[in-house]
């Protein structure tokens, strides 16, 4: 379907994800693996292509090697001949000598690319969130409202709203106030227990965007952030509207997750192994794509009493071999091997993890390439685990990438 107007999509993928440490020790947050075969950014990229968007820049800076490789290997799917692209743009410091100071600065520093494309609209997305959304509905809304800026919003309980940008709207859905991480968030007009928060999805008229980020760039006391600086300065001056998130996941409750902490990461993965996951990865109407190498089929082997290769209530990537061990309620990325008499439950094992014989692993995230020596026990004694690993408040153990015993 040809686009009526020219839309440029910018995905801000510089998120450090500090609270996801050590999963973000070697990679930016959008590059953190999720759901066996995906990376967090795959959801945003899939949404964009499912919405018919074909001009996409991914702005990166922090620990970006893994993300660059993933996009090169998995998302090189467009035809430049037709003016389509997914291009990764590293921070180039063409303006000044700083890394990106804030989200608005990351767009300002890439004003050259806006200038090259001269789009009518610029859709700004974050590479940090997991959700399914048809941006075309938002674009339609933006045009109907004749808006300068449209912000996609999501309802959260008042007590959770403090972590986000909170909006106040009038009956025409026009934004009348915007506060980033407020102490006392304004509740939504139709429900005193809920707040409208910004999902970090902004649709701008290009001219407004350029003028406002330039104004902001010239303010020495600004932190150069959309949520903290640019948008609050636009309220009352420009036509700013709130678009209620329409969820292509189509479940009873809307699904939008900021996988900000180890607990949130763990719970979102565990959702996928439940009988009726909230996040549906099997919907052919709204496919989520990723990079997948050619992989041999999953194999289970041995059915000899205690030495039985068995997987229950789990998702498993290609190339895994479950050789005489047991896996319950777990997410296994490609090339994982579970050896005889080992037992893995309620855990997330990333690519090429090898679990030795007689190991017992529970409520543990094991990052890539870790070879767990035979007989190792993790997830049963928090004080013992804390001596070696990061353990979350709820007791989730994280074994970092390439960890050596």
């Amino acid at each position, binding site marked *: 379907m040809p686009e009526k107007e020219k839309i440029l999509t910018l995905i801000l993928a510089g998120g450090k994800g500090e609270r996801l440490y050590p999963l973000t020790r070697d990679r930016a947050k959008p590059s953190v693996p999720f759901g066996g075969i995906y990376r967090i950014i795959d959801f945003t990229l899939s949404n964009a292509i499912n919405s018919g968007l074909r001009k996409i820049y991914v702005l990166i800076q922090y620990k970006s090697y893994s993300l660059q490789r993933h996009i090169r290997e998995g998302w090189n799917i467009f035809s430049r001949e037709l003016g389509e692209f997914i291009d990764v743009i590293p921070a180039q410091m*063409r*303006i*000044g*000598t*700083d890394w990106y100071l804030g989200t608005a600065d990351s767009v300002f520093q890439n*004003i*050259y690319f*806006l*200038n090259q494309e*001269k789009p009518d609209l610029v859709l700004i997305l974050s590479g940090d969130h997991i959700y399914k959304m048809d941006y075309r509905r938002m674009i339609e809304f933006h045009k109907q409202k004749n808006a300068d800026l449209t912000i996609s919003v999501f309802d959260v309980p008042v007590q959770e709203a403090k972590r986000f940008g909170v909006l106040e709207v009038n009956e025409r859905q026009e934004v009348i106030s915007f506060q980033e991480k407020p102490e006392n968030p304004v509740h939504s007009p139709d429900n005193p227990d809920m707040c409208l928060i910004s999902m970090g999805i902004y649709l701008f008229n290009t001219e407004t965007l*350029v*003028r406002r980020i*330039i104004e902001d*760039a*010239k*303010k*020495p006391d600004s932190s150069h952030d959309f949520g903290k600086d640019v948008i609050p300065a636009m309220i009352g001056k420009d036509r700013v509207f709130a678009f209620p998130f329409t969820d292509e996941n189509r479940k009873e409750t809307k699904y939008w997750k900021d996988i900000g902490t180890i607990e949130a990461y763990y719970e979102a993965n565990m959702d996928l192994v439940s009988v009726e996951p909230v996040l549906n990865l099997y919907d052919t109407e709204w496919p989520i794509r990723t990079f997948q190498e050619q992989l041999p089929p999953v194999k289970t082997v041995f059915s000899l009493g205690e030495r039985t290769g068995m997987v229950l209530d789990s998702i498993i990537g290609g190339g895994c071999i479950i050789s005489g061990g047991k896996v319950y309620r777990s997410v296994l990325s490609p090339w994982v091997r579970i050896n005889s008499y080992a037992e893995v439950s309620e855990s997330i094992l990333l690519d090429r993890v090898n679990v030795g014989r007689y190991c017992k692993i529970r409520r543990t995230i094991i990052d890539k390439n870790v070879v767990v020596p035979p007989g190792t026990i993790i997830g049963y004694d928090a004080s013992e685990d804390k001596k070696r690993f990061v353990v979350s408040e709820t007791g989730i153990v994280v074994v970092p990438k390439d960890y050596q015993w």
Partner: protein
Amino acid sequence: MKKILLIEDETNQRILCTETLEKEGYQVIAASNGEDGLNLLKNNDVNLVIVDIRMPKMSGLETLANILGQRKNLPVIIYTSYPQYKTDFMSWAADAYIIKSSTGLSELVAKVKELIGA
């Protein structure tokens, strides 16, 4: 006395602008390209910059980007013979865009006064 940095590659224009602005009571330091201009900016307490666009080595727009990197809220005036760079988003970062014409120089002086006073 207010100090103006003039970045202009063409000698006659540079002399003309400098003399005119000096007559108006400003101190003018001048550079004939963007790189020299940025060096002068580093070592001088400048109140305003006037920059040409078409220059060798570094264009005026690139120079403007660098000025923003160094001194965010420093007023900058683009002074050029070419109107077409108005559509370049980077030019919007300047406080004014004045075309060199028969009235250009007086417009320039008026804008300087407006931005930094006499």
